[in-house]
């Protein structure tokens, strides 16, 4: 699904604002140098945008939202990256956080902060009040994790993010899955954002 260059830039900016807020919050909380950047964004129908990961074992945090727009915000890391990221967060010098319980707790919170940043940014653009579910940590196959949370008509705002904590650098995906019918509203919201910026 092709976005116009202006829309692409606007979506990228939204994602960057969201991860920027999250990075600042994580830095404040962990007192660690955190680098978070959006490498690539796309808007698509279905979840094929990240098909490189299909079949991979992933660690994921999901947070549902409802209101004028409904869907699920999700953060997905390949399992090995999740392990490295958790080790860096917990300053585990052995670099091997093997226990699910440890990984789950820390990653849920990191995912929560990141997704809150993204949803804060997108929520401002979309307008209207959204209700959110409590974030949920899940591990599993990439395809299985997303299959029952999406349909071919699901609109996906996808961002590939790079997470850097000290020497550790891992890539993850943020997917905001919108239920059917949100596409035109989302494009309109992006266009509104572009025209507001032009006026400003």
């Amino acid at each position: 699904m092709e976005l116009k260059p202006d829309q692409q830039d606007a979506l990228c900016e939204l994602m960057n604002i969201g991860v920027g807020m999250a990075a600042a919050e994580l830095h404040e909380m962990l007192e660690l140098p955190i680098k978070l950047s959006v490498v690539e964004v796309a808007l698509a129908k279905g979840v094929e945008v990240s098909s490189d990961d299909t079949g991979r074992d992933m660690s994921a945090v999901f947070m549902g939202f409802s209101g004028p727009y409904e869907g699920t915000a999700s953060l997905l890391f390949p399992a090995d990256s999740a392990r490295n990221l958790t080790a860096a967060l917990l300053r585990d010098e052995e670099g091997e956080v093997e226990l699910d319980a440890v990984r789950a707790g820390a990653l849920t919170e990191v995912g929560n902060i990141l997704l809150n940043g993204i949803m804060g940014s997108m929520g401002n653009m979309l307008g209207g009040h959204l209700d959110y579910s409590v974030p949920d940590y899940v591990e599993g196959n990439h395809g299985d994790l997303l299959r029952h949370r999406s349909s071919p008509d699901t609109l996906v705002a996808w961002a590939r993010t790079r997470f850097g904590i000290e020497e550790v650098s891992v890539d993850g995906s943020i997917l905001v899955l919108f239920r059917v019918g949100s596409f035109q509203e989302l494009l309109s919201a992006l266009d509104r954002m572009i025209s507001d910026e032009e006026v400003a």
Partner: protein
Amino acid sequence: MTAADSFRLLNHLPIGACVATADLRVVFWNVRLQEWTGLSPEDMVDAPLTHRFPHLAKPRYGKRIARVAHGGPPATFSAQLHGSLLTCLGPDGRERKQNATVSRLVRDDGDPLVLISIEDVTDAVKRTQAFQDMRAQALRELEARKVVQSELARSNRDLADFAGIVSHDLQAPARQAKRFAELLLASHSDQLDESGRTLLAHLTTCASRMESLVRDVLAYSKITTDQDDRELVDLGVVAEGVLQDLRSRIREYEGSVEVGALPNVVAQPTQMRQLLLNLISNALKFHRPQAPPRVQLKASTSTDLKHWVIEVVDNGIGIPANKRNSIFGMFQRLHNASEYEGTGVGLAVCKKIVERHGGTIVACDNADEPGTCVRIELPAATSSSTLRAS
């Protein structure tokens, strides 16, 4: 309806629950939190939460909670990154570990509230910590063992090198002493009396024996554990070569060696040759007086099919039951050199070869008649290995 009535249901949940206004003034404090903190609803309700838990005023907590109160998504605070949100002590006097979630509620009058729900994960964290400590300890012990093993291997290598060098250097003088004694006997025996010739003959024998000993010690020290020079070895072919070498001795003893089907094994070829040579030589040598040696070399599989069982069976003088372990030690002899020649190193060499190949070697009685059976077990090369008739 009071706030206590509105949220009474939260007293029945197995979690700590606190409801507060957007500026963190406590509206409801459930019984589980009372139990954990020792603070009653009377202590807490209407008071700012930050009075008892001042760290919540810090931006890392306060900003995130405020964002929830103002319509943002729920915020989670994990035990891994924070330890606890509403800090309190457990029965052991140590801080409880908590996973906390702060989510938004809206009162009937429209004012926002936050619900702080606390899951006590102290036991899980303790178990995790115990597991991690155990794992760290195991890794430390493994590392220490590796260091010791490496040191031991180095020490063994040094010892083998030393034995090799000493044996090699002793070989020349032993050989020369024997040669000079032989020369003396050949060229000047007429100038010696009978006693002198006898002494010289003893000297020659001793020099020969020293030469044999040095040669055998050298052979022993050369048995290495290097995996790289192992290959698939057909023991049938090895046995044929050994019998060729022993042809004259077999004839001399008027003996016979019967070789059955033998397997392929992954082994160092020259060591396999040395093994069979030593065992068949022994079987021929230790025969009964006036009884020609009859030796059988045969193989079968162990009951679990993981090993080849190779037996060298003879009709010789046998080995007393109480000596069957010690004969595999260095320089162990059951008879003096005048009865049976040898250095007492041959079976030690066999044991070292077999063990370096992951096998075992034992001596037992010949099951069918007086005599000895030396039984070797070597790992089977492949599950599909078959016996080959020699």
